């Protein structure tokens, strides 16, 4: 029997596996050095990066909810310059493609960020048009096809790297958004970002989160994410990075069957910092049990 291979290629990026980390849940990779095996990761997607440093939202920033969590970090990050000058040289040693998740408050800012990140150390940019936390417009780009398309075009015009669009699930018709992304020239689609939600303290009659609302992630969102990946798979031919509530290999396999070419692991990193390694081992084992040798043998194979 030939050897099992999890190696893959996505939007021209060669990857050791189809397992990536979701932006905002894996820091810059360094935080997980004691637990992750970077040779089993397809790519590290780093924290949402903006032109200027941001200190994020005030007050309580996370709340646990049934089978999930809400967050309103508010895109705290050191700014793109610090990423380029200080962080990217440090994390080069992992020999793992680095994808930078970027967020702007104007269309032009996305272009500028994409341009600044068109450097050797960066494999691709992922456009965060769905982060529900930032008042300065973030949400507007992702829920309306026209503005999302102008953001994609601005990024494409300013970089030679693949441009990944990360779709917001807070829309009525995800397939329509995916088609718009394809038309605007995106190279790949990530989905889903967090679902807008809130939690209330019944003793104080106040919202739990400092920002009142926040983004829901974790197992609770998995069925929604899976459905959206499946709908997008039917609508476009772009590669798909599926995410939302992936906690183990079985969850990841569901996403592959629904049509994801790669998966990203988010909230699960907080629960089990070595989860990406476990998922890698679990995928190998699953392929072996099914007498398959290539991860591509299961992608999009849902029989529906």
């Amino acid at each position, binding site marked *: 029997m030939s050897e099992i291979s999890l190696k893959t290629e996505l939007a021209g990026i060669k990857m050791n596996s189809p397992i990536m980390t979701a932006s*905002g*849940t*894996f*820091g810059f990779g360094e*935080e*997980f050095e*004691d*637990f992750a095996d970077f040779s089993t990761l397809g790519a590290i997607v780093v*924290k949402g990066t903006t032109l200027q440093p941001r*200190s*994020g939202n*005030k007050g*309580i*920033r*996370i*709340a*646990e909810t049934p*089978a*999930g*969590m809400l*967050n309103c*970090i508010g895109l*705290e990050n050191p700014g793109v310059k610090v990423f380029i000058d200080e962080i990217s040289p440090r994390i080069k040693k992992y020999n793992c493609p680095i994808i930078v998740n970027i967020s702007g408050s104007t269309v032009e800012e996305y272009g500028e960020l994409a341009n600044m990140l068109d450097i050797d150390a960066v494999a691709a940019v992922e456009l965060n048009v769905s982060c529900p936390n930032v008042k300065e417009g973030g949400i507007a780009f992702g829920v309306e096809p026209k503005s999302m398309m102008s953001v994609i075009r601005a990024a494409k015009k300013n970089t030679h790297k693949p441009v990944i669009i990360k779709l917001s699930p807070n829309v009525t018709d995800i397939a329509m958004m995916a088609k718009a992304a394809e038309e605007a020239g995106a190279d790949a689609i990530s989905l889903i970002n967090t679902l807008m939600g809130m939690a209330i303290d019944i003793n104080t009659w106040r919202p739990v989160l400092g920002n009142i609302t926040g983004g829901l992630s*974790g*197992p609770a969102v998995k069925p929604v994410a899976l459905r959206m990946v499946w709908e997008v798979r039917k609508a476009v031919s772009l590669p798909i990075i599926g995410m939302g509530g992936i906690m183990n290999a079985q969850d990841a396999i569901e996403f592959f069957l629904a049509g994801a070419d790669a998966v990203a692991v988010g*909230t699960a*990193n*907080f*629960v*089990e*910092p*070595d989860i990406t390694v476990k998922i890698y081992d679990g995928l190998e084992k699953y392929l072996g049990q099914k007498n398959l040798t290539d991860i591509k043998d299961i992608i999009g194979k849902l029989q529906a």
Partner: protein
Amino acid sequence: MILHKHFLADGAIIRHEKIGANDVYLLDIDIFTNAESFAAGQFVQLQVPDGEILLRRPLSIADVSGSRIVLIYRLIGKGTERLARAAVGSKVSILGPLGTGFGLECKRPLLVGGGLGIAPLLLLAKRFAGQADILMGCKNAAQMDWPLPLFKNVVKNTFITTDDGSMGMRGFTAEHLPKILAENSYDKVFVCGPEIMMKTVAKITAGHKIACEVSLEKRMACGLGACLSCTIETRQGRKKVCKDGPVFNSTEVFFDE
């Protein structure tokens, strides 16, 4: 400061019992790795052994012995309530040791603790090998049931305050601190407890020109510095409580954020 490699261990519960009438529990866990060098002030992220609790819970390392660590916690909500049901012999996943510990360089330390903030001061007192004094405060005499025996042989002098005066001095710890500082020659104060208490103690020690370290609490998801749920503004810029703290120099933090 020695930076430990983090470990993720399926610990085995050796002892688990209620030690305080006010729903305070002691959890003694074998983590199968040498714990002796963990610093006082560091904490672990414990996974509640109940499939339904998603996020780990941060708990301070209250004591260590060989490959065992002791955690002391109070029932607060869903997570700690489920944790209290974990049986001796069962497994519990522990991620640690996290954060930075207290800085031990000083000659005459005073430890100041309120409520469950007293827990991490136990290991700190042991690190000072009987040379530290402690000022601890609780609501009433009944709540002193667990800290009193624990600290009996590990500190030099013990000062006690209760809000209602049912034991020791009446009032909050901070109210009695100026007098205690005036009558002794402490060169460093370590404080862990409710935020308002740490804020007041920080102010008093600053007035007395005595070094002071505080141990902060913030909601945490990862505990590793990745998720940014726990960041604070400090005089040295943004810091992560889980990684750069939880122990901070009192002059570094802004309590009113």
